[in-house]
């Protein structure tokens, strides 16, 4: 039994699913500041009892020379819960693909137990390894300990946020681009933009190796980089037969569900009209041994997705249908990214995301700024009303 009675939270230690309450309780065993987890339990119990939160808005805290990566968090009830009077978040920039060795994780845990609450998020929504709960005075020590070992802070505020990606080529045969390589490159390339907020608002980059989009790039990144291919899907007819022999109803499960109805199968040869294929990944994902993406690899670049605040949620829009990503240091992709960010940074109002800016300005100024021509792949359908802009350059043609 701890310092506070927590009957409601104790209820959430029962049941089969792993319990976050148990985790917060355990943090008391190892942290050098067990009063943090103790008072965190007390305050969360109070929230459960009264149905409201007791955290103040973040204050400005951070480490010297950086403008982000630490989120100030203070209890609004510091007399009742002194252990969490300060309870700041320290975001560690995760390695691309979320791969670790036990040695690295143990180091992170040891330092966190010494200078923080022992409570973590593995991982936060954006992708950082999130350490929950430390004091202002411990921030520089944490930064010295982690950064000297090669672990930098993540992003926060009006800055580049820590890019993230799917498992990519490390363990997925569908990766059309080196998602982890691109993610790591972008993170390193934009270090200054990540640590020193100078943008109108946040800017997120996420990289998925294929249209399955395991990192949800299309839904929550200002810049969504999604792997794709050109050319024919590679078919292993013997493996197709194995799926059929194994009981798969190829007609109803694959042929009938094909987005563009470009597959035919008569029980013998499995045929794809690749000209008509939209590369949606359904057939490939269901027949992993029989079908593989085509060999000319690249990415589709989409822009603008975000959550509802302020004027409604957005799913990213196609900007560049196909771009090669196999050049040295992803130079083409990096230049495109810089140009997109520059246009947004030059034009957006404070707290205006890229998608919202495009809604205000239209897609044309962005396309012109980055030198990408209009293409039917960018729209579901052309406009319906006969209201449109003409500019001098259109008359010159």
């Amino acid at each position, binding site marked *: 039994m701890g310092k506070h009675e927590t009957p409601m939270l104790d*209820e*959430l230690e029962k049941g089969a*699913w*792993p319990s976050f309450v148990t985790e*917060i309780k355990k*943090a008391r065993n190892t942290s050098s500041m067990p009063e943090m987890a103790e008072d965190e339990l007390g305050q*969360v119990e109070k*929230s*459960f009892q009264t149905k*409201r*939160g007791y955290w103040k808005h*973040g204050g400005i805290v951070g480490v010297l020379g950086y403008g982000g990566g630490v989120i100030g968090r203070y209890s609004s009830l510091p007399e009742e819960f002194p252990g969490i009077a300060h309870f700041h*978040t320290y975001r560690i*920039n995760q390695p*691309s*693909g979320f*791969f*670790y*060795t*036990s040695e*690295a994780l*143990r180091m992170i845990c040891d330092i966190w137990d010494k200078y923080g609450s*022992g409570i*973590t*998020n*593995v991982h*936060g*929504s*954006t992708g950082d390894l999130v350490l929950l709960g430390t004091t202002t005075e411990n921030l*520089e020590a944490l930064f*010295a*300990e982690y*950064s*000297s*070992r*090669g*672990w930098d802070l993540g992003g926060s505020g009006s800055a580049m946020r820590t890019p993230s990606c799917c*498992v990519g080529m*490390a*363990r*997925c045969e569908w990766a059309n681009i080196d998602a982890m390589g691109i993610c*790591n490159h972008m*993170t390193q390339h934009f270090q200054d933009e990540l640590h020193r907020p100078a943008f109108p608002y946040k800017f997120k980059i996420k990289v998925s190796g294929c249209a*399955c*989009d*395991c990192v*949800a790039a*299309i*839904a929550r990144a200002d810049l969504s980089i999604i792997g794709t291919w050109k050319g024919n899907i590679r078919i292993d007819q013997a493996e197709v037969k194995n799926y059929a022999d194994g009981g798969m109803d190829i007609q109803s*499960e694959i042929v009938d*569900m*094909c*987005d563009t109805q470009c597959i035919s199968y008569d029980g013998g040869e499995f045929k794809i009209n690749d000209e008509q294929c939209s590369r*949606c*990944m359904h057939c490939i994902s269901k027949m992993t041994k029989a079908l593989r993406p085509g060999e000319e690899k690249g990415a589709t670049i989409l822009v603008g997705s975000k*959550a509802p*605040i302020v004027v*409604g949620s957005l*799913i990213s829009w196609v900007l560049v249908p196909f771009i090669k990503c196999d050049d040295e240091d992803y130079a083409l992709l990096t230049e495109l990214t810089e140009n997109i960010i520059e246009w947004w940074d030059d034009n957006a109002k404070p*707290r205006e995301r890229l998608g919202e800016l495009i809604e205000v300005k239209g897609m044309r100024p962005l396309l012109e700024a980055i030198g990408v021509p209009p293409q039917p792949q960018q729209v579901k359908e052309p406009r319906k009303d006969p209201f449109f802009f003409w500019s001098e350059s259109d008359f010159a043609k």
Partner: protein
Amino acid sequence: MALPERQTDVGPPHFEQFLPPVIKKNYGKWKHHEIITPGTMVHVAESGDEIYTIRAASPRILSTETIRDMCDIAEKYCDGHLRFTTRNNVEFLISDKAQMDPCLAELKEKKYMVGGMGPRISNVIHTQGWVHCHSACTDASGIVKAMMDELHEYFTTKSLPNKVRLAVACCVNMCGAVHVSDIAVVAVHRKVPVIDNAMVGKTCEIPTTVGSCPTSAIRPNPKDRTVVINEDKCMYCGNCFTVCPPIDIHNPEEDGVAIVVGGKIGSLRTSPKFSKLAIPFMYNEPPRWPKVVDAIKNIIDVYAANAKKHERVGEWIERVGWEDFFKLTGLEFTYQHIDDFTFMRDTLRTSAAFKY
């Protein structure tokens, strides 16, 4: 003790140093994979090399003690290699097939929940909630725990027509992709915020506060150095509270959650979709939110009984029509379901053909 010398702008460590040798060797050269059980799979490289993966659930909030326990397991069976998924599961990466059974046995003994692969419910994406966020109007971890205690068999054993991606957001800021989930819970306010006029003048920037409102419900009151909210226009999003804390949006008795359904991220078969409103409001009932959990179970049961194999929740609903979704689930259709925000034009029906 003196601190080590800090470095700046070093970025994260390069991922390569954390990859198991078999992954390093076959990077970009994987041929196919197979889900062996709901929580285990094998990837086979063009070279014939194999890597086995065991996936286990995590509450995402982890103590250092639990992370060290995961490290112990990884050291015993995986040469110390482990990773986490984009949905916050832990994955043990096993290069030696003979280590699979002993690793699974230890995970079982330690009560790890193995599963989450294939046409099932994987881990739930969720936000910080009352545990750590100032704008939360529900507790995300609490709802996830209550929900998954009831649904965990869909993680470990039972299958569904396709994956069902669940998410919980503790306010409309929606950290995490709640707006494109098969079924998601999002916390909402329903009352116009209460303004502490004296504090607004002291702590807020008036133009920013006015500009934060998506429905232009806020106008300045320069005489009193504060703002006025037009109650007829306010949709209770709370963005004003985010930029100006003295505009208090919290109302513990009237805050609660909405349930949205049918969102999808992948481009497979059909385009990615937003989640749409199924239930506009349910009260917060900590610690177990029983009515919310029942409502989600009901939607999953109806989906499981009616969808075709490989259809996601949203694809099934679009095939049968939203009018059928409300009929089959028994959910009430209310004024709140008809969009009167920015996307109304796209959502009203423009055909005389529909079902009853």
